[in-house]
C-alpha cells in the first residue's frame, strides 16, 4: 500500500491583524475594508519559505526514522535561491541521508499538489520507499493592495511511504492551463493579478469542476462519498458543492482569517488539517489550483488512529502572537529598509567551504557524543571536554535539533544588531546533556525565565547581501504547546 504515513505543519507565530493593515493603508484602498478581517500569519524577521518548510518537515518526521527517506520534494514559489537546490538545503537541515533524491517544485500555486504527485510517482515506480514533501510560501502583496491582506505565510509537510500508511493514495488527476490569474516575474518582489471577475468566472468556476469531475470519473469515485475536500483557494468554496452533491461541511476550511493564503503550501496545509480530524475510511480529496489544477484522492486507514499526535495545524494555530504593528511587518518581511547603523552593516562572513565541511553542525545541529563517557558536546569536538575523560577521537555524531532543553542563562542585548531588538540569546542545557549557546526567537524578554523549557527552530541566521547568501542555522524558542 502506498500513501501518507505522517504529516506536520509550521505556522509562524506572528499574526498580523488585518485591521492594522487597513488602519495604515485604508486611506488609499478603502475597498479593502471588506477583507480586513481576522489575522494572517507572517514570517518573523529570521524566517523565509525554506526555514518554515524545514520546521514543518521536522514536525512531520519527529520520532520517525529519517534514514529511510529517499526523496525530498520542496514546493514553493518563494524560495531563497534560483540556483542552488533549496530542497538540498532542506535535506541537510533535516539531516537526511545523502542518498536522497531532492527537487524544488515551483512556478505555480499547484506546486504543493504537484510535489505530492511527484513523490507518489517515485514511490509507485519503486524508486524509493519513503518520500517527504515540504510546501511553504511567503508571498508579498504590494502595500495598498488586496494581496497584502490576503497573503499569509505557512508551511506544511507530508511523508509518503509504503508501511504504516494512515491514508492510502487512490489516484490523481492533473490539468495544466496557462491561466495567468496571478504572476510574478523572475526577480520581482510582489505579485500582480488580472481582473478578479475573470479569474472567478473564466477560471476557477470552469477549471475546478473539470478537474474534480475528471478525477472522480477516472478513479470511479462517487463525489457523494467524499468525506473532506481540500480546495486550495483562499475562499469559502462550498458554493460549488451543489453540482457535485457535496454538503458545505465537507469543505475543509481554508484558514483565510487565521493564516491567510499561503500559496503553494495551502493544499498541503489543508490536507494536514483534514488528517488531524480524519477517521478510518474517510475519503479525502485535495485540489491544488494555479496554472491548471491537480486532484489527489486519499482514503484514511485504521493506522491513522495509531500515529502519535503530530505537531500540525491545531498546535501551530494555537502558538500565536498578535502583531498589531504594520511597520514591524514591513521591516520583518523586507518590504521596508531600515537604518541598521554601521554595526548592522558589518559584512556577514559566509565561507561556503566551511559551511560545506561543517554542514551537519551548522545546518542540522549535529554535535558529537563521547563513546567513552557519553558526554554530548556541541560544536563537534575530537577530544572529549570532560576533564575526567579527555578521550581522543572516540566521538559519534549526536543530534541536538530534535531535542528539548532548559534555559541555563540568557540576556537581552540592545547593542547587538538585530531587526527585532533586543537580541535575546542564552545558554541552553539540553535534556540528555550538552550545552548550547543560542539565539532565541519567537519570544519576548518578559517571558524569558531561567530553567524554562526550550526547543529548537530552524531559522535564517543572516543575509549576506554582498555575496547573495542566506545563512541558516537553529535557534532556541520556548517549548511549544503540544498538539492536542
Amino acid at each position, binding site marked *: 500500500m502506498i500513501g501518507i504515513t505522517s504529516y506536520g505543519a509550521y505556522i509562524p507565530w506572528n499574526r498580523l491583524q488585518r485591521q492594522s493593515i487597513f488602519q495604515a493603508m485604508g486611506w488609499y484602498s478603502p475597498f479593502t475594508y471588506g477583507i480586513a478581517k481576522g489575522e494572517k500569519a507572517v514570517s518573523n524577521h529570521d524566517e523565509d519559505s525554506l526555514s518554515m518548510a524545514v520546521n514543518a518537515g521536522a514536525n512531520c518526521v519527529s520520532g520517525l526514522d529519517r534514514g529511510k527517506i529517499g526523496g525530498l520534494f520542496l514546493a514553493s514559489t518563494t524560495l531563497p535561491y534560483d540556483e542552488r537546490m533549496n530542497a538540498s538545503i532542506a535535506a541537510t537541515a533535516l539531516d537526511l541521508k545523502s542518498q536522497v533524491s531532492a527537487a524544488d517544485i515551483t512556478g505555480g500555486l499547484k506546486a504543493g499538489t504537484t510535489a505530492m504527485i511527484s513523490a507518489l510517482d517515485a514511490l509507485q515506480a519503486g524508486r524509493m520507499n519513503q518520500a517527504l514533501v515540504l510546501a511553504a510560501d511567503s508571498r508579498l502583496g504590494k502595500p495598498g493592495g488586496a494581496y497584502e491582506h490576503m497573503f499569509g505565510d505557512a508551511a506544511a509537510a507530508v511523508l509518503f511511504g509504503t508501511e504504516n500508511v494512515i491514508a492510502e493514495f487512490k489516484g490523481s488527476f492533473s490539468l495544466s492551463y496557462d491561466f495567468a490569474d496571478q504572476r510574478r516575474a523572475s526577480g520581482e518582489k510582489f505579485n500582480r493579478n488580472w481582473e478578479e471577475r475573470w479569474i472567478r468566472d473564466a477560471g476557477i468556476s470552469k477549471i475546478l469542476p473539470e478537474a474534480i469531475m475528471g478525477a472522480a470519473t477516472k478513479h470511479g469515485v462517487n463525489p457523494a462519498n467524499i468525506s473532506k475536500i481540500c480546495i486550495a483557494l483562499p475562499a469559502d468554496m462550498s458554493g460549488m458543492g451543489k453540482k457535485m452533491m457535496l454538503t458545505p461541511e465537507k469543505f475543509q476550511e481554508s484558514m483565510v482569517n487565521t493564516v491567510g493564503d499561503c500559496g503553494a503550501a495551502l493544499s498541503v496545509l489543508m490536507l494536514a488539517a483534514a488528517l488531524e480530524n480524519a477517521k478510518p475510511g474517510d475519503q479525502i480529496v485535495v485540489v491544488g489550483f494555479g496554472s491548471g489544477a491537480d486532484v489527489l484522492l486519499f482514503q484514511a486507514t485504521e493506522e491513522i488512529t495509531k500515529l502519535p499526535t503530530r505537531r500540525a495545524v491545531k498546535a501551530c494555530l494555537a502558538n500565536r502572537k498578535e502583531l498589531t504593528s504594520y511597520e514591524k511587518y514591513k521591516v520583518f518581511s523586507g518590504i521596508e529598509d531600515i537604518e541598521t*547603523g*554601521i*554595526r548592522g552593516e*558589518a559584512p*556577514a*562572513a*559566509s*565561507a561556503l567551504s*566551511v*559551511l560545506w565541511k*561543517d554542514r551537519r*553542525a*551548522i545546518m542540522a545541529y549535529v554535535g558529537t557524543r563521547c563513546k567513552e563517557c557519553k*558526554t554530548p*558536546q*556541541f*560544536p563537534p*569536538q575530537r577530544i572529549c*571536554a*570532560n*576533564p575526567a575523560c579527555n578521550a581522543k577521537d572516540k566521538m559519534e555524531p549526536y543530534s541536538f535539533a530534535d531535542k528539548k532543553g532548559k534555559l*541555563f*542563562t*540568557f*540576556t*537581552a*542585548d*540592545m*547593542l*547587538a*544588531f*538585530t531587526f527585532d531588538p*533586543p*537580541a535575546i*540569546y*542564552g*545558554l541552553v*542545557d539540553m535534556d540528555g*546533556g*550538552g*550545552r548550547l*549557546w*543560542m*539565539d532565541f526567537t519567537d519570544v519576548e*524578554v518578559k517571558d524569558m525565565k*531561567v530553567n524554562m523549557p526550550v526547543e529548537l527552530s530552524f531559522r535564517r*541566521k*543572516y543575509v549576506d547581501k554582498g555575496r547573495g547568501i542566506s*545563512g541558516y*542555522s537553529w535557534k532556541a524558542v520556548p517549548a511549544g504547546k503540544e498538539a492536542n
Partner: protein
Amino acid sequence: MAEGIRDKVAIIGMGCTKFGEQWDKSAEDLMVDSFSEATKDAGISTKDIEMAWMGVCFDEVNVGKSAIPCSLALKLPFIPCTRVENFCASGTESFRGAAYAVASGACDIALAMGVEKLKDTGYGGLPDFGQAMGTRNRMLLPNITAPGAFAMMATRYFEKYGLTRDEGKEALAKISVKSHANGAKNPKAHLRREVTVEQVMRSPIIAEPLGLFDCCGVSDGSACAIVATPEIAKKLKGDDFITVKALQIAATSGEELLYTDWDGTYVKTTREASRRAYAEAGIKNPREEISMLELHDCFSITEMVTFEDLQISPIGKAKEDIDAGFFNLDGKIPSQPDGGLKCFGHPIGASGLRMIYECYLQLLSRAGDRQIKDPKFALTHNLGGFPAMSVCSVGIFGRK
C-alpha cells in the same frame, strides 16, 4: 616543579597615556607617548632595550597586524619585536613576553608595549565580534556582544544566590560608584565624574540586566613597561622599582560550554590563574595579604565574581563585602584605585599594562590623591573572552 619567576624580573619604568577618545592621535602616537614616559622614568634610552613585545587585539580597526607598527613607531633598532594577542588579556600577554625574556636570561632589558585605538569604527561598543570568533563560529554562535556575554553571568548569579533584579543591580551599582569615585581623582582616566547608586541603577539597559553604567567605556590609549633584571634595576633605580611576584595565565579547555558542570556564576580561568599566582608569589591567605586589586572590571558583574574567584570574598558573599565598603579606596583591600576599566575604558592591548601601571605607582608611593597606605602586594587581573570561554592573566607585584 619549576620555581616560577618570583623576584626575577623588575619593572624599572612605566608609561601610560591619558585614556579616552583620542580623535587626533594615532595608535602610533599613543605608543610614542607612553614609551617616552617609560624611558624617562627608567632613565634609559631606546638603544638600551634589547627585546620588545606589543599587545593589540583588534588590529583590523587600528594599527594592523604584526609588531612592525611598534618597532617602526618607536624606531627600535632591528631588535626582536613580537606582537601578541589574547583577546582582552593582550596587555598582560605583552608583559609576560618581556618578563619571561628577562627571567630566562635571554636579555637584560625588555619593553612590554600595549596599545589599542578602538574609536575609529564609527559606532559605540567594541568592534563586531563576528570576524573575531572564527569562520565556523560566525555561522553557529549568536551575534553576541561583550555586555551580553557577561550579562548572562549576572542572570545566573542573581538566580543562584536568590537576589532579586533590584538587589543584584544595587550591589553591582555600588561597584561602579566606587570605581567612579576613584577615577574622578585620576587625571589619566577617561570618565572622571562621580556617580550615585541611583544613577547607575537607572541607566539605560545595554544587555539585561546590565545598564550603561555597569559597562566600561570604549577608548583609545597606550601603556607600557620596561622590565629588567633586579641587578640592573638596583644599579639604575636604587630602591625605586618593583618586582614581579607572580605572572600566570589560564585559558579554557572548553569545559564551561562543552561539559555542563560549570554553574555560570564564576570564571573558571580566574580561579585557575589566581591559584597558581598565589602559589608562585608565596601567598597563603589572599584576603589578609593582598593590599590592592586592579581587576578586569569590563562589567560590574565581572568585578563582583572576581572578588570571589580570587578568594578575597567567600563564594556567594561578595555582596556583603561590597556593602561594607571593603573594596573602597579607604577599605581593607581597595579595588580599582585608579578607576579601573570602568573609568579608563578598555583599549584592549593597553588595559593589562594600565593595571600594572597603577600597581607600580601605588607600590612606589607615587599615586598622589589615590595613594593607598603602605601597600605590600598588588594584584592585576586581566580577562579575555567571555565567562563561558575565557583566558585570564593574574599578576602579583611588590617591592623587592
